[in-house]
């Protein structure tokens, strides 16, 4: 079975007056249906690793393979297309477009991909929002929604093009306990649908323990998960 995402000695160095190594020599493979949590102390490079896995960033050396395809030498447009088709993102901040309604935010990736008719996009957007319990909020703008609701809209948007992988960077970092439980619960239900994998970056050990696999990052390298976690 081809892994969904695979890294080969992926290293990312930020060039500057002093070079900063964000991640170094990462070798890992994520298979369909896996629920992976990336943990580590702040500044350890766990977000940087996620950006590499999500093709938002390019490795300085090594490679990241998506469904067996090497991506390091792809141009920006090809990587953007791959992101649009196979990857879905949820960030710590909802990152919704403020002037667009919840529904318009959800249909945005579909419109960029342009595979469905306008009507089908709308229907699918409404479906996703309904599934996330936001049926009545489809036409509200982000500033009319609560933090938990916004994050659920962001999840709906991540699901817009039915991606193989959802990448979530501290998706509950800004939420209260009740909303955290709700949003995390939803993310958990996405795992395994049509072989979908979920990769979540978190500093919360309680949430990390609910994943099927944990990757612990220390100083930009994979390390064994600490026993007390």
């Amino acid at each position, binding site marked *: 079975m081809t892994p969904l995402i695979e890294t080969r000695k992926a290293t990312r160095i930020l060039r500057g007056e002093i070079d900063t190594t964000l991640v170094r020599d990462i070798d890992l493979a994520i298979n369909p249906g896996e629920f992976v949590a990336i943990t580590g102390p702040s500044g350890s490079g766990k977000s940087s690793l996620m950006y590499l896995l999500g093709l938002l960033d390019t490795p300085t050396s090594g490679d990241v393979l998506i469904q067996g395809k090497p991506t390091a030498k792809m141009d920006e447009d090809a990587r953007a297309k791959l992101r649009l088709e196979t990857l879905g993102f949820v960030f710590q901040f909802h990152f919704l477009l403020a002037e667009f309604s919840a529904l318009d935010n959800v249909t945005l990736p579909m419109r*960029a991909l342009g595979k469905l008719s306008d009507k089908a996009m709308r229907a699918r957007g409404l479906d996703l929002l309904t599934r996330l319990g936001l049926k009545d909020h489809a036409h509200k703008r982000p500033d009319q929604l609560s933090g938990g609701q916004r994050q659920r809209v962001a999840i709906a948007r991540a699901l817009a093009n039915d991606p193989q992988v959802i990448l979530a960077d501290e998706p509950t970092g800004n939420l209260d306990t009740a909303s955290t439980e709700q949003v995390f619960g939803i993310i958990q239900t996405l795992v395994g649908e049509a072989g979908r994998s979920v990769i979540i970056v978190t500093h919360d050990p309680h949430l990390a323990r609910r994943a099927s696999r944990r990757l612990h990052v220390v100083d930009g390298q994979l390390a064994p998960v600490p026993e007390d976690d």
Partner: protein
Amino acid sequence: MGLAIDIAITHIRSRLRQTLVGVLGVATGVGFSVMMASLMEGSQRDFIAQLVDSLPHITISDERRTPPPQPAALIYDEVEISNLSTVDRRRGIKNPLAVMAEIESWAPAKVAPSVRANILLRQAGRDVGAVMLGIDPKREAEVSNIASKMVEGSLDNLVKASNAVLLGARLAERLGIRVGNTVTISSSGGKTMTATAVGIFRTGVAQVDDSQIYALTRSAQVLAGQTGLINELRLKANDALGARELAARVEAETGYKAVSWQEAHEDLINAFNIRNFIMYTVVGAILLVASFGTYNIISTITHEKTRDIAIMKSLGLRAALVRRIFVLEALVIGLIGMLAGFALGFAMTKALGAVEFRSPFGDATRLPVIYSPIHYGLAGAIALGASLIAAWLPARKAASVNPVEIIRGAS
């Protein structure tokens, strides 16, 4: 494309006041450009029309471009000859009726014969040099509009009195001649005649009003001392602007020097070209300044929307799409500005055209303006082009935003 338009419109809506200022900038630029162009070209055309109407389009004279060589020079080719008395040639166009008939057979023009003579006008002890044009009133009407420029008397009066003359208004003023007065005219050949002023004309061309008098062909021939003399043919072409080419052909076919009005007023045409160059430079500058406004707006929007751009790019929207969004925004501003500018320009031209002012020497006139689609097309095209260029730099910068930098900065 629909997506880019939606986002572009959303951005413009969120910046309504600034967008309005930008639109106003473009509109003012386009409006003033259109107005200026219509006034400049209007006055130019008006002037040329006046000039062309009151002067013949082509004047054929009995001269040659290069004076014919003297017989002695023809015989003794390589010898320097001096102190030779030259052979006098009989003046005038040979067989003028045949020449006229020949020209009229192929040229899209009307021809009238005339006698041009330099004369001295004497009145109350004052002498003024002038040019007498001996004409046939019937044919004259076909080549010039002098009949409509009469302020006193009429062209037909020429045949009603013996030795009758029409005078230019400024010439008449200078000498204090009124209709009915008698003047003494002497030619360079020493002939003198007493004539009666039967009319005064004003063409608006100072040179003509100042120094031209009209008489019958016969009177002019008497003064020139040569019966049957015709030393000038004047042409009115159906197409005034084609006079230069027509003149060249007439000259080639008849051998006589044919001067088009363009050649006769070369300096004026040059002055107009320079004027047009200055006008287009100023118009271009106005539109350029207007495009700075557009640049400013697009620049501000891209700065403001950096986070949105990062989000869209992280989701997988291509850089070209992001670029298109901002170029579209500039196009919308440019397009609305252009249309508003057309309306503004039209209104201002209309207002200018209604202004009436009085020249101290003439009748009340209106500012000559013309309405030409070319002016609108040109101003619009430059405005849109400038908007596109103004948007390109910020749009390119926006499209090159690295989403990771923004996302990392936000978390």
